[in-house]
């Protein structure tokens, strides 16, 4: 009796779950169908998606018209280099926080004192700008003023106890891009804008707008807090005794990190890379604002199809499928490991 009931229950659950699953997946499925139809058939898809012939032509046309391969190359360069750069910065940082944590702040100054120092440095910068007529034509002056501001801020962050340091890193991830867009835009685009002139070198020759030199570090900075956090939670699971054994065995810090910690944490590092891969692959705000050609990634490539003359649905669908397929597959394989990174360890 109970057995029968549970079988019926399973059948109902299966039906409900599959219906919802298919519904949620449907837009993706629908795009995939349209991608294999001719342009005219794509418009009448709801009526006759089974009766019309299938075709592969769209993929070729998309490549021909908008050079898909170049965009996926750009995306790959940005994603891979920024991930590697991120790991290079994050592994030592996460090691330090997991295995040599600072229980107390290293500086004796109170939080209010630091705030006063940082605000004072900000005021000094503003005064400097005021006396140069709010126009740092000489970027050198601007940079020096910025250093006056950055150094105390970094020192404050650096001397905090590990617990607070981690939370501070997390909070940097929460800064809205709208707040940073203007300066970053102007720093990237030096043509006729700020920081143009160092006095002896014309910076506008080194415009980093729409270049990998700008996008890769930017993407690294965007995701660095998440990488550090995720690595930190993985490193915490490694028994400290093994690192101590390495130290006793005469390993230098480099050997401890490269030959003991990194190989042991490899699964965790791999999931961290995957999450970073997904986040930077899909990043749109900065890509749309800071690239338009040479370093433009796939999210830019797709946005080009929004213009009215680009509304060829079959091609749009083919392009979409080409843009999402790689990361969708990666996402499927790594979904179970992603939770930790997506919640900063707050849910395990």
């Amino acid at each position, binding site marked *: 009796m109970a057995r029968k009931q549970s079988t019926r229950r399973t059948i109902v659950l299966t039906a409900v779950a599959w219906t919802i699953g298919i519904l949620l997946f449907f837009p993706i499925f629908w795009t995939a169908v349209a991608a294999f139809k001719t342009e005219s058939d794509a418009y009448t898809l709801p009526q006759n998606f089974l009766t019309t012939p299938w075709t592969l032509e769209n993929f070729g046309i998309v490549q021909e018209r908008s050079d898909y391969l170049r965009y996926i190359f750009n995306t790959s360069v940005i994603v891979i280099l920024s991930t590697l750069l991120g790991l290079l910065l994050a592994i030592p940082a996460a090691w330090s926080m997991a295995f040599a944590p600072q229980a107390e702040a290293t500086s004796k100054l109170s939080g209010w004192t630091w705030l006063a120092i940082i605000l004072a440095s900000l005021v000094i910068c503003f005064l400097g700008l005021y006396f140069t007529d709010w126009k740092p034509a000489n970027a050198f002056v601007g940079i020096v003023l910025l250093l006056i501001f950055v150094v105390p801020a970094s020192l404050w962050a650096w001397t905090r106890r590990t617990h607070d340091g981690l939370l501070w890193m997390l909070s940097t991830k929460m800064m809205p891009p709208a707040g940073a867009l203007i300066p970053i835009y102007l720093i990237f685009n030096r043509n006729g804008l700020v920081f143009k002139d160092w006095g002896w070198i014309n910076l506008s020759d080194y415009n980093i707008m729409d270049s990998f030199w700008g996008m890769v570090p930017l993407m690294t900075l965007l995701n660095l807090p998440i990488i550090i956090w995720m690595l930190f939670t993985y490193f915490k699971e490694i*028994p400290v*005794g*093994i690192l*101590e*054994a*390495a*130290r*006793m*065995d*005469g*390993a*230098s810090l480099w*050997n401890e990190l490269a*030959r*003991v910690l990194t*190989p*042991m944490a*490899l699964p965790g590092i791999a999931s961290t890379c995957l999450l970073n891969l997904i986040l930077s692959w899909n990043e749109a705000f900065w890509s749309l604002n800071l690239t338009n050609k040479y370093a433009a990634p796939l999210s830019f490539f797709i946005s080009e199809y929004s213009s009215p003359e680009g509304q060829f649905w079959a091609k749009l669908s083919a392009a979409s499928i080409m843009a999402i397929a790689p990361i969708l597959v990666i996402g499927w394989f790594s979904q179970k490991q992603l939770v930790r990174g997506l919640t900063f360890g707050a849910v395990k």
Partner: protein
Amino acid sequence: MGTISLKKVRKAFGDVVIIPGADLDIKDGEFIVFVGPSGCGKSTLLRLIAGLEDMTSGKIEIDGHDVTDVAPAGRELAMVFQSYALYPHMSVRNNIAFPLKMAKVDKGEIEKKIAHAAEILNLTEYLDRKPGQLSGGQRQRVAIGRAIVREPKAFLFDEPLSNLDAALRVNMRVFIMQLHKNLATTMIYVTHDQVEAMTMADRIVVLNKGTIEQVGSPLELYNKPRSLFVAGFIGSPKMNFISGKEAAQLDAHTIGIRPEHIDVTASKGLWNGTILLAEHLGSDSFLHVDASDAGRLVVRAPGEFAGKPGDKISLKPVSDRLHRFDSAGLALARG
């Protein structure tokens, strides 16, 4: 060479004092055991010697050189951890080779040393396995192998046998003692098990609440415990302590007598009592006796002793085996 000396070594976390100040001289080639109940600071002391933790003040010298500010890697000591701390991603061969690679020993030399260590440790056929595929005892031997190939100035063992089952523990104990005999290198061994300490040590260091209570050979500690704590900690079953009137008669605050130093007589003993419980081990029988004035005593009787609970017996301590302690718990001279 491997002499180690601790000079006024102090360790505190803020206001919490772990080790108030330890002085100790360890001779070259000695087998030293740190023993004490858990939380007595014995592992901390070992980790201070290893350099895995900082001293709050004091000085540690190895072979006469001050190593207080030398990193663990520079102290030329080898350590065997309680958890073995093997590198899980490396084969046994690479685990053992790791310290040699770090010391940039050349390849042929490394191969030779690994082969030699594997032979001593009976690990030759496991060299290409990962630690995860080994039993507890084998892992323990790999950890030892990793330590011996370096030819360190001294070996540090942090409760190395506590994760093994009883039979294996006895084997490994013997093995480590043989190793010490063959290598003649200084070894410092931390354990909470006084049997291990008694059987293995040249000298035992008894720690209590971070303080060194007594340093001496096993028999010295057994025969002449300097304090109540040492007297109670060394020896099994525990020494009987009697205070009050019985002790006052001997001008002491507390007197102590080991179970094996009390004779059971038919009559005319010092104390009369009733057997509460008898543990027959075959070789010996341990009697728990309620000896009214003296309180409850444990007494060792011959294996064939036939007493059963409820029997009245008379007890007679071996007089020159009586230990006397003052009110501070320190031993008084034999009187």
